[in-house]
């Protein structure tokens, strides 16, 4: 099976920033992504959990996308102004995908 090199970008960010992250992804030409709820965790801003929370202020989400390596810089440049000052983590992982034309 033919595999192709790709980058997996994972953004864990405050739930209130969901719209802004999606807008940045679309600006960078990324149309395929997945949003996952995050149960809880701990970081520089302390420990948190989604359980029992009514408001979105203390919730986090994970936005994951797979892109061609050539598009990575444009995506990170579009994401940076959104992430600035907000609680969150961005990671980029080298990965392999099938059907490269889709990314």
């Amino acid at each position, binding site marked *: 099976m033919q595999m192709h090199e790709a980058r997996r970008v994972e953004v864990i960010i405050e739930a209130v920033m969901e719209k802004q992250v999606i807008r940045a992804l679309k600006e960078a030409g990324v149309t395929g992504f997945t949003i996952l709820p995050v149960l809880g965790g701990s970081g520089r801003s302390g420990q948190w959990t989604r359980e029992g929370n009514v408001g979105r*202020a203390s919730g986090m989400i994970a936005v994951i996308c797979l892109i061609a390596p050539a598009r990575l810089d444009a995506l990170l440049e579009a994401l940076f102004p959104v992430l600035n000052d907000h609680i969150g983590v961005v990671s980029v992982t080298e990965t392999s995908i099938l059907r490269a034309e889709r990314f």
Partner: protein
Amino acid sequence: MDQILSLAGQNLLSPVILFFALGLVAALARSDLTFPEAIAKGMSLYLLFAIGFKGGASVADHGADFSLGVAVLAGVVLSLLLPLVAFALLRILARGVSVTDAAAVAGHYGSISIVTFVAATSLLGAAGMEFEGYMVAVAAAMEAPAIVSALWLAMRGGAGGKMDSDLWREILLNGSIVLLLGAFFIGWATGERGMEEVAPFIVAPFKGVLCLFLLDMGIVAGRGLRQAGGVVTPGVVAFGVIMPLVGAAFGLAAGLVLGLSAGGVAVMMTLSASASYIAVPAAMRVALPKANPALYLTLALGITFPFNLTLGIPLYMGLAQMLTGG
């Protein structure tokens, strides 16, 4: 004074308060008692729907007049004004708090806590004190203006802050406001007939759901207090207790000037004394991300909310009765 103490005694032994205390103790004792997020949000939607609909039906029953518009306007003015007072008070009582944090906290204290409002209306009902149905609209009107004042304070102090379309959408179209106002107008439009149709769903189960919701609030508040760490200084605690009393005094003055009933004055005091922990924290995360969420969430939910629930509301009810002769 006896009346206030009697109300406070009754209040402390009501199921609503005892369930909140249970949640608080459970969280502080590190129990694994917890509510899934979806259930907590579901209960919140139910309470907003019920209180909005009942308020609208009450306005349809008693008729709307000029006083509704004036009360809403007074709520907007209070919401714009109270953050300025809160900002100054916090900077006096807790000198280590930054301009950014003080502005964010101030926004919470100008806005309102809808659950404190619901708890107050429930206790008023138990005490047989009626209030104007349009106070629901006043509560909705008081949610957002405080955010504008808070951001003005932050910008003036050089702490940044941004007001863009995303923020306005977050403020004006957040689910709580849309449901509360939507249910209010539907209740108003359908009146007595509509109330008869939905009463089995929103009247009898209301207190039970409120007890469960306050159990959840107690758990979240206790968890917040446990994790608050260094933010809870004596000055911060003093602010969390004094500011609601200051806000209530403004609400009392507004209620008396507006000529509200004793119940209406108590609700206006409660609204002015309460601090938001749903709408404003989300708006502050968008507009003032450098502000410390542990500070404003601990203050609003861990200190001021329990204070209002246990001692504040009976005090406001007693004072309102005493000063209106109601």
